[in-house]
């Protein structure tokens, strides 16, 4: 094979391959040097509020908020209807980044934790939904938020998290993932 004569062919085939290798390097190399270390609390379900039906036209609204580092719950009676999908209390979990596991927390457990509700952690990471895409025709791609995948991203790395709650999520409702706060040590 005459290499000199086939340089355009070799370069033409090499360009896409180099791009693919570059993407693999961009995804996996940074994770060897930078790792997120601050654990966080998340809720699955109706957070920060859910309702509890009292009568046909009245319900109790439960609201969660972080005040001075503590997760607090307040209630108030509201006129109107409480929809079944909004009437389930959320479940809280502590995500351990070192082991990629979640531990369920009760409200008393949460009182022992100091939480930082900022979107970004002290070491520069955020917890976000992933993106999913499809292609009806090749080359015509579309992407949208994927509520079934949760990532921790920042400092040029992105890692998929194994959160609880199943694979049937939507942006609201009883299976929704909600970030609550970073655990302050």
């Amino acid at each position, binding site marked *: 094979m005459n290499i000199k004569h086939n340089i355009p062919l070799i370069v033409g*085939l090499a360009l896409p391959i180099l*791009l693919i290798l570059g*993407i*693999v390097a961009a995804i996996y190399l940074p994770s060897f040097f930078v790792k997120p270390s601050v654990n966080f609390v998340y809720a699955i379900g109706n957070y920060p509020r859910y309702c509890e039906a009292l009568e046909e036209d009245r319900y109790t609204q439960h609201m969660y908020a972080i005040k001075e580092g503590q997760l607090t719950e307040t209630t108030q009676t509201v006129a109107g209807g409480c929809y079944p999908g909004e009437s389930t209390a959320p479940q809280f979990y502590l995500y351990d980044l070192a082991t990629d596991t979640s531990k369920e927390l009760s409200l008393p457990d949460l009182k022992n934790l100091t939480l930082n509700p900022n979107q970004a952690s002290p070491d520069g990471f955020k917890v976000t939904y992933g993106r*999913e895409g499809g*292609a009806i025709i*090749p*080359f015509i791609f579309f992407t949208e938020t994927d509520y079934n995948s949760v*990532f921790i*991203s920042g400092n040029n790395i992105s890692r998929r998290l194994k959160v609880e709650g199943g694979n049937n999520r939507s942006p609201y409702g009883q299976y929704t993932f909600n970030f609550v706060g970073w655990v302050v040590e």
Partner: protein
Amino acid sequence: MDQKAEALQYVASLGQDQRVTENELLTAFRQGRGELGQGDKSKRLSLPNILYGIGGAIVFLGIAVLVSQNWPAFTPLTRIGITLGGSLVAYLTGVMFSQYQKLDAMSQAFYLISALVAPLGLSVAFYEGGYNLGIAEVQSVISGLLLALYLASYLAFRKNIFLLFSIIFGSWFYFALTNALIGGRPIFDELKFYEYRVLIMGLAYLLLGYSFLTTSRRVLTSWLYSIGSIAALGAALALGGWTPNQNLFWEAIFPGVSLGVVFLSLPLKSRAFLIFGSIYLMVYILKITAEYFSNTLGWPVALMIAGFALIAVGYSTWHLNAKFKTVAVSAS
């Protein structure tokens, strides 16, 4: 002086007067040695070939409509049989016909049917196997299988139709695989990522088209040049962005890139380069005018400047095209 010395002296005089190019000399030399294939002339589009192509496309349409209209009535095995089985039967029929020189052109029609139905057949098979066709991983596997099949077919039979579909399925695989690698990670800017991939694909097409120029695969060159220049120039223009989020590097180099493409049309004898280079240069002029001058000079004055610039580009294009024709006439 013997014949060989006379011929070489004549070639030297042609080169000195620039009446023939290096590429033309090499092409003639290879034709004489039979490297470009005696059947090259038969590969040009004739009426029977066009009808074979149209017939093949209509057969594919018929299969797709048959399956979609009777989807609930067909069992999974029937659906796979009609689509994937149909593609396999068409492929084998093409192989059989290509054994006879008189039926070689017709075999192309069956290869076309097979190539058009194969993605449908594999998609139906994966769907019936319970896989989600919308996710990038499944798309990668389907396109990867098709790429492997058609590349192997090209290496075995050396038919340009297999190479054409290898390029098409390879491009699909390239996009699907890179989407699968990203895996929904939010750190990638999706639009920029898409633009860079299209740019790389366009450049690859242009280089492939150039490498095929002096070979039996040159029938694909004009197609690769057209798609490649549309993709590469379109991506380069899109990477420039729009104020206030513009990318100054891409906006600054784009006129040089598109003018370079226009001027390359002469040595490469590519009308696609001339046409698309000019069109994108005109689009760039309109874009820059609207982006930077419509608020300062006012729309009417900005439009006048853009209009004169377009007239200048149009005249240059016509002038280059005329030069193109002169070069083509003198070469023949």
